[in-house]
């Protein structure tokens, strides 16, 4: 399924809706080039989970964890792990715990990802418009939450 947002504010809005509804033990893979709005999406998701702390880039430490919300939130950026051996880095600990885990550039971890996760691809239509392509575990939940944003 595909969805359209016409501004960063709308990207924030759909991510927040998702954050409000996601069940425990959810793994989201977020793919999209630089400047697509991955950071905005992460901020919206965290807001939806009820996290009030400022969401900062996880790149330096690889992962940032937030405990203040409805569920624990783990925000990872796999960007710099391209072409690296990832099997022995203990990364699966993060998504096998109770909360919501969002991995930017998660496809770079394909060899260690579990069977069930939700993949969200962000593509650019023009400067402001973004198309979100969703597949995997929470496809149906997202179809319900984002029905006003469906892109045909």
């Amino acid at each position, binding site marked *: 399924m595909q969805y359209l947002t016409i501004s960063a504010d709308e990207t924030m809005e759909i991510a927040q809706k998702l954050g409000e509804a996601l069940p425990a033990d959810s793994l989201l893979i977020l793919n999209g080039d630089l400047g697509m709005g991955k950071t905005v999406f992460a901020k919206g998701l965290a807001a939806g989970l009820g996290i009030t702390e400022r969401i900062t880039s996880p*790149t330096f430490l*690889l992962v940032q964890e937030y*405990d203040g919300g409805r569920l624990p939130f783990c925000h990872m950026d796999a960007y710099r792990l391209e072409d690296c051996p990832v099997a022995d880095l*203990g990364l699966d600990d993060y998504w096998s715990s109770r909360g919501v885990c969002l991995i930017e550039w998660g496809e770079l971890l394909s060899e260690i990802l579990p069977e069930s996760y939700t993949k969200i691809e962000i593509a650019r239509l023009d400067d402001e418009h973004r198309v979100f392509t969703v597949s995997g575990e929470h496809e149906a939940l997202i179809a319900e939450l984002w029905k006003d944003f469906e892109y045909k």
Partner: protein
Amino acid sequence: MRILAIESSCDETAAAIVRDGKEVLSNIIATQIPVHQIYGGVVPEIASRCHLQNIAPTVEQALQQANMTFDDVDAIAVTAGPGLVGALLVGVSYAKALAYALQKPLIGVHHWQGHLCALQLEHDIEYPYLALVASGSHSGIVEVLSDNDFRLLGASLDDAAGEAFDKISRALGLGYPGGPAIQKAALLGDAAKISFPIAKTHDTYDFSFSGLKSAVLNHINQRRMRGEELTEQDKYDLAASAQEAICTALAEKTLLAAQTKGYSVIGVVGGVAANQLLRQKLADNKNGIRVIYPSPIFCTDNAAMIGAAAYNYYQRGEFADMSLNADPRKPIYFV
């Protein structure tokens, strides 16, 4: 008063002996940078494992170099957060066990108070002063009102300054850590070659480096899409231009804050404080503002700064007990 201090919040295992919060008797740093280099940055699990291997020999070396035994130590200090939880836990557990076995006082130190206290190792500090804190994980402007009273004026809204250096360095193939690599490449480059945007976070003391990083990466991508390979000289010019933009943003906001709030001294701490262009830009102020820095060895993560901060905790009577825990998200500056 000799404090044994331990720091293990990120990718350096460090131990130091500091006398009276000022005199560094030893300062040992076992860096893990080579281990993390292939990942373009720290990997939490690997950092924890390395800390476990390094901590005992590092502490031993710190004692040896200071010509001391455990009996000569008056207190044990350790970084309790913020940082990587697994990495912090190694230092915290080790320090607790030491304090318990030796029956010495235990002090849990805030990592960023440590960075600020690096200044007192080499300078006589008068409060209040203004601090620019800039590293790979955090960039902020702070009013330091006393050794235990900090007001955050502004911070990075997205990437930290050091992170921007890391990402740009990676894109240019210059390696990790990015700060020193960019600085070195920039020496051979022309900073005026390309003008990168400096984020205007109007009416605030906040920073934003995400846009700059994207602009540099887009520039590189556009060149590649036109089939133009970057020459070595192109890389040097890009490094110089990017460094110019990052340092200008840091210096302008910090000097503006000092001027507006009436501070005559700026202390610059954290890994990015080692950057020469930043130092030059801050020094070139027309308001007679004095700028102070720790030596490079005290800019990077180290335990001497933790020992300096711990002395202040000791004077205030702020001790930890065996319930001390690693707090990876300890609020910045506020204990």
